[in-house]
């Protein structure tokens, strides 16, 4: 078996919001976008072992060993002070997983699971690991019927998508904005690749869901919604659209000064999409 290892922020054995059915979700550390609105900002950075988090840990669960951060999960009481202290938005509590580790977890929880979803961070940043993991799942008889999904920002290049899709059943793709300068303001990157990824995925029949985050005054305006509708029409009106509402939970920094997206605004946007003939529009079941 491959020796590829992944840097994992967290694993959930129960999730009903990361694809169809109940899923094992592997949150991989590190993202190539730097979204102000991110609700998991501690998954963006990758630890550089500076050690600034060590004094913040009152449980003495962190230390430096041979120049690298060492984390003791038994001592940790999950206060998250280290995450607050981290100067680069990383997480010193990440753990390394091999493909065999993940397969063992799947076996343990198999009767409860419809499949696995890799999320993040941006999971395609650890492309080698997820490709090999999915390939391993798809080649084993014991995992027959077990689906492999990716939750992505779409920044992965076209050639790499082609490779990954061979072992992938579906992708939840986020489009953060249609106006490119707005996209750059929100994420730090152009949206060109993400839009292209949506086309590749749709053509391959693997675009499970297109996600659009509504942020008041930024992405909920006429121009953005019209471009969303045009884009969906250019793909096909059967695309499942998930409208997400910007909230403050988990958010850090300047985006905390932005308004939260109200339910009424989300419902209005959903109505516009439906009126344009896009029938499969999903809105949040919970607003916090």
């Amino acid at each position, binding site marked *: 078996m491959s020796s590829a290892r992944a840097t994992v*922020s*967290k694993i*959930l*054995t*129960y*999730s*009903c*919001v*990361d694809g*169809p*059915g*109940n*899923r094992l*979700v592997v*949150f991989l550390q590190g993202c190539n976008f730097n979204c102000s609105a991110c*609700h*998991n900002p*501690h*998954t963006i950075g990758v630890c550089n072992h500076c050690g600034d988090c060590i004094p913040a840990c009152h449980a003495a669960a962190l230390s430096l060993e041979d120049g690298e951060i060492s*984390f003791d*999960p038994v001592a*940790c009481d*999950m*206060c*998250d002070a280290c*995450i607050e202290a981290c100067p680069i938005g990383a*997480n010193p*509590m990440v*753990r390394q997983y091999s493909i065999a580790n993940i397969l063992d977890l799947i076996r343990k*929880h198999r*009767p*409860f*699971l*419809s499949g696995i979803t890799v*999320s993040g961070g941006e999971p395609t940043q650890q492309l080698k690991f997820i490709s090999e993991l999915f390939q391993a799942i798809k080649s084993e008889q014991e995992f027959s019927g077990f689906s492999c999904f990716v939750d992505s920002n779409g920044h992965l290049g076209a050639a790499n998508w082609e490779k990954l899709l061979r072992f992938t059943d579906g992708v939840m793709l986020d489009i953060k904005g249609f106006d490119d300068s707005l996209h750059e303001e929100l994420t730090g990157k152009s949206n060109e690749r993400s839009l292209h990824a949506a086309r590749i995925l749709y053509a391959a029949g693997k675009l499970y869901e297109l996600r659009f985050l509504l942020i008041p005054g930024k992405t909920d305006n006429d121009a953005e919604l019209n471009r969303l509708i045009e884009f969906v029409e250019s793909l096909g009106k059967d695309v499942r659209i998930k409208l997400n509402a910007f909230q403050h*939970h*988990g958010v850090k920094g300047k985006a905390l000064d932005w308004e939260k997206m109200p339910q009424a605004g989300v419902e209005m946007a959903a109505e516009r999409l439906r009126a344009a003939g896009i029938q499969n529009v*999903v809105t*949040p*079941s*919970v607003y*916090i």
Partner: protein
Amino acid sequence: MQEITRKLHEITTDKTLSPAQKAHYLALEAENLLPYPALDAKTQQALDERVICDLYEGHAPYKPRYVLPDYSIVLKQGSEYLELPVPETLDEAINTLMIAYHHVPSVTGMPVYLGQLDELLLPFCDGVDDQELYNRIKLFWRYLDRTLPDAFMHANIGPTDNRVARTILRVDAELKQTAPNLTFFYDPQVSTEQILAIATNSIVECSKPHIANHPMHVETFDERGYGIVSCYNALPVAGGSSTLTRLSLKEVALRSKGEADFFDSVLPHYMEMNFRLAENRIDFLFNESNFFESFLVAEGWIERDRFTAMYGIYAMAEAVNVLQDKEGRAGRYGFDDLANALGHRISRVLAETVEQRPMKNVWRGHAMLHAQAGLSNDVQATPGVRIPYGTEPDPVMHIQALAPHHQYYESGISEILTLDETIKDNPEAMQQLCKGAFSCGFREFTVNVASNDLVRVTGFMVRLSDIKKFNEAKGSRTNTTALGAEAADIVNILERKPRVMSHELRPGYGQ
């Protein structure tokens, strides 16, 4: 006497109770003026200290706690005593059942079992089209909730996929009534994927039905069948349970020096006390009450020798944690492998002891172990073998931690999984959880969806809006709301933790 007069006066003048509810409480008080069935000194002491308890069944058990008539008898033969002819049409069949229910006693004074309704009504459905069937079931359901307003009352359907079961699921999800409670029997060999999907979608709508692992129950009972009643008790049809006495494992653990003392001496002692308490009550019921002279026996709805004794236990979580403390181990019940293994060992010992202890006038000659879902005034004692409110791990880990207990609790074990409402967009996840739970040995699968108005409290259903109204002293039409309001005030039951709130990735390591 002054004390009792004051209490009776309080009941008769209560602002929140209806006349019928007052009559019920007055009758209970009257019964309890009689002396308790004579107990030996040690049993009396255990009862006084609340190590064992009879769940306030009353001092003179003149009726079994749970009665599960075989309603197919009255539908096939009519009833001489009730002067009912054999029903021929669906209307007549439903009418016969509506009458029959009023003659079936139980601890609450209302029937706890409404029968395997699809099996009972299907023979009357030829020539009845879907719309007519829907209209009739809807009226039937409304009647049940309005005239027998007790959420302990339970209808059963399944395991086959049939018109009546589908219509009942549809009507139940539509009306969202507290009563009746509903269990769907699921058998992967017999039930279709579609009916399981309808059932799990209904859970999303109204936290009902409760889903029973049919093959597992079939193995426990006989060809006459079983029913699920009240707080998820599995009992023989054409019989029931004479009594339910329960043992507080927490109190037993507190009286032990440590693990060895618990298993070798203290647990066997108090287990015996709980057997004796049950025996005394059964003796009164069988030898003095004249209950079995009833037409229910004469006409074959029930049989005298098909009544079991439910041997209840609760507060497993506290018991394990107390023993862990006494042994100097930090691991907590529900989270730590060693603590969980200790819990499983306790369940095994309980089951073996119950199986081996002969009892007179009890179905198969011995009691049946039951993980008891709690009373509304239990304080710091978690129902059955559940993980304490507000501290449960995620639903998958919850199920995996508790699954090994289920094999031992033949007369039922209720595990309430609380799921947050994000599951509403993903009913397939509910179905997968149900299948997962059964594949690892769960007897029953019960879910609360956190935002639902209709919720299970210690095992019965109440409406949150009813609790709110009751607390504002407006009174409630349904009897269980009073219990629910008490439960909510005393045991923080509504704080049961909804899980997986919109799945924001929480940074902390661990579960």
